C-alpha cells in the first residue's frame, strides 16, 4: 500500500492503515491501479484525501467512470465535497 504515501503524509498513512482489516488491505493491494486513478481524480477536485480515505475509502475501488457519473449528475456537489467528504453520502456513494 506504499503507493498511498503519494497522497498522504506519513502520519496520515500510518493512522489510516491502522484502522484497516486484512480484507481492506487486500482490496487496496489488488485494486492498486484503480485506486490510483480515482485518487488522482479526487486530488484534481481538491478534495481532502485523508478524510476521503478515512470516511469513504470503499469508494476508491469503484470504477472511475461510475464515480464521475454520480458526481456529474449532481452538479452542485463538488463544493460540498470539498467542504466535507461525507457529503458523498448525499449522492449515494
Amino acid at each position, binding site marked *: 500500500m506504499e503507493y498511498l504515501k503519494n497522497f498522504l503524509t506519513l502520519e496520515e498513512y500510518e493512522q489510516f*492503515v491502522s484502522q484497516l482489516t486484512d480484507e481492506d488491505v487486500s*482490496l487496496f493491494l*489488488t485494486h492498486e491501479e484503480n485506486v490510483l486513478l480515482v485518487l488522482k481524480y479526487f486530488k484534481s477536485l481538491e478534495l481532502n484525501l485523508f478524510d476521503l480515505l478515512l470516511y469513504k475509502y*470503499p469508494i476508491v475501488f469503484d470504477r472511475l467512470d461510475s464515480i464521475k457519473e454520480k458526481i456529474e449528475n449532481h452538479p452542485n456537489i463538488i463544493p460540498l465535497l470539498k*467542504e466535507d467528504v461525507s457529503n*458523498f453520502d448525499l449522492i*449515494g456513494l
Partner: protein
Amino acid sequence: MNKLEEVLRYHIEYLYKKLNAFRLIEDETKLKEMKKETRVFTELLDDLEKNIENISYLDIDSVLSKLYSSQKLDKVLEELRLVKIVLEAKNQKHFPIDLSEEQNIFLQDLLFRIHDQERQHLEQIPFISQEIEKKKEEKEAIEDKIINLSIILEKILDPDNLEFLTQEEFVDFYDCILNKEIPYEKRKEALISWKNYNDKRSLLDKKVIERIDMASIRECFREYGLLDSVEKYLQKYEKEILYHGDISNIRGILSYLQEEDLVHHKPNLLSSFTPLNLLTMCIYGTVSSVKERYEQLSENKDLLDIYFSTPSVWIRNISGRRKHTSGIKRETHPDKSSFTLMTMAHLISFEEMFQNEKLLQELGFSVSLKEGKGIAAIKMPTYRLHENIDILTKYDILNLDNTENFPVSTLSFSDLVTKCDWAIEVGWLNPLEKQFGNYIQNYPSKLQVKIDFFAVLYKLKNEMPADEYYRTVFSENGKLNKAFYQNGYLQVSQGKSFADFLGNTFVDFAHCSYLPNYSSFEQIIVQNFQLDYDLSIFNDSLIKKLETYHHVNDHDFQYVFGNVAVSRFKVLRIYSILKKQENIDLEEALLFAITYNSLLSEQSLQVILGQLGMKKGEVTYGIS
C-alpha cells in the same frame, strides 16, 4: 453438469427463495409499532383514569383510527371536538355548563375502547415476539444450510480436491434428496454420484509437489518477461512462496495465460493482471482453476475488468467458510511481511461475489459488477454483508424501502455495531434530539470518525448540558463544526497523546474493582458474538427495572442514567449473551453490559452506579 452438482445447485436456489420469503423486518416493524401504540394507550389511560376531563388537553386524534371504524371516524372527531369545547368553557372560562349525559357516555365508551385496545395489544405482543424468534431461528438454520451445501458444491467442483465427502456433509446433502420439487430420478442419480465421488477419491494418487528455491522461481518469471515487475513481491513474500509454491504449477499458469488461442479468441492475458495479482494466482491457483474460469467467463461473454483485479476469482475458493475470523482489525502492519498472499487468494469466491451482487440489487442498492459500482460491498463475506445490513436497519440508519440512494460504502465498514453504539452514546443517533440527533442517519459515513474524536465527544457530552454540547459540536446548519472537528481533540486533550488522554479521562474497566470478571466476560462476548438480543431477556428482573426506570419512552435506542446515555441495544445484546452462561453474577454482568465499549469518566460511572444502587468501593450489589 453431473446430477450431484445439479441437485445441489437446485436446492441452494430453493433455499434462497425460502430465505427471501422471510419478512422479518416487516414483522419487527409491526411489533415495534404495537409496542409504541401500547405505550400511548397506557399513558392515555393514566391521564384519563385520574380525571376523564383531562381529555380536553390530550392529543388523541392520532389513535382514534385504531379505536373506531373509518365510517364512524368523522362523527367521533366531531363529538370529541364538541366535548373539548364544553370542557374549555367549563374549566377555563368558568361558564355554568357541563357535559351532557350523551357526552359522558361517549367518553366512557372511549375509555373502554382504549382499555380494550391496550389489552389486545398486550395479549398479542408476546405471541408476535415468539413468532419473530421462531422465524429468526428458522432463517438462521436455512442460512447455515446454504453455507454448508455451497461448501460441498465447491468441493466437488475442484478436481484438485482430495478430500472425501464426510458423513456430516451427507446429513446436509440429504436435505436435497428429500426435496420433492426435484424430480425423483435426479435425486436418485445424485445419491449414486455421491457414492461414486468418494470411490474415485480413494483411487486418486496423492499429488506430488515439487518444492522450489527462489532462483528457480525468478527464472520462471524471467522466462515470461515478468521478473522486473514481480521482484519486489518475490522478496516481500519469499517465505510464503517457498512454502506454498509449485514450480510446474506456476509455469503451467503463466504458460496458459500467455498462450494466444485464435480459435477460442483467447489473447495473451499476462498483462491483464497486475504483477501482485498474477503472483497470488500462481501460488494459490492451479492451471485448471485458471483455465476453467477463463473459459466460463469467455463463453458467457462476461470478461469484466473486476475479475482481473480479483485473484481469488481464479482460485477455487470455498464460499462461506469465513466466519468471525474476518473483519477483525489488523494486529500487524500491512507493509510488513506478516501480511500474506493467502488473504488475497481467499478474499472472496466467484460465486459469493455473484450472490452478493444479487442480494444487494434485490434490496435495491445501486451496485454492479459490470459497471464497477459498490465493489467493496460486493466483495465482502456474505455473512458480514447480511450482518451490516441488519445492524444498519436495526439502528434505523438504513430503511430497506429506500435503498437506492443509500451510500453503499457504509455497508463495508467493519465493527459497525460498536460504532453505532458509540453514535447513540454521543448523541449522534438520538431521535429525541430534533435538530442534530439524526446526524448519523444523514451522514452514515461519520460512523468512521476516528476513535480519538469519539473520545472527545464522550467527554464533552457527559460534562456539558445537551444544548451547549450540540452547539459546540455542530454549526447551525446541522453540519459538523469544522473548527471543532479540526482542533477539538487538541484543545480537549491539551496536546496529550491519545493513550494519556484516555488514561486520564476515562475509567479503565478492564482493571476496575466493580468488574473483577471483566476479562472473562469479554472473552465470552467475543466467542459468542450475536447481533441481536433474546426477547426473553425482558422477563429478567434486572432488565425489567432498567426498562421501567431508565428506558426513555418512544426511544428504543437508549437507557439513560442521569445525564449519561447508554446504548440500549448494546446492553440487551451483551446481557443476553452473558445470561446464557453458567455461574455468572448477573448484577456484575449487567454492569459489564452497560459499560462495555463505552468511554465513561469516573463521575459518569458513579452516576450509573448510584442509579443502579451499587455501592462505591465495595463488591456489593443491589438494584434499586
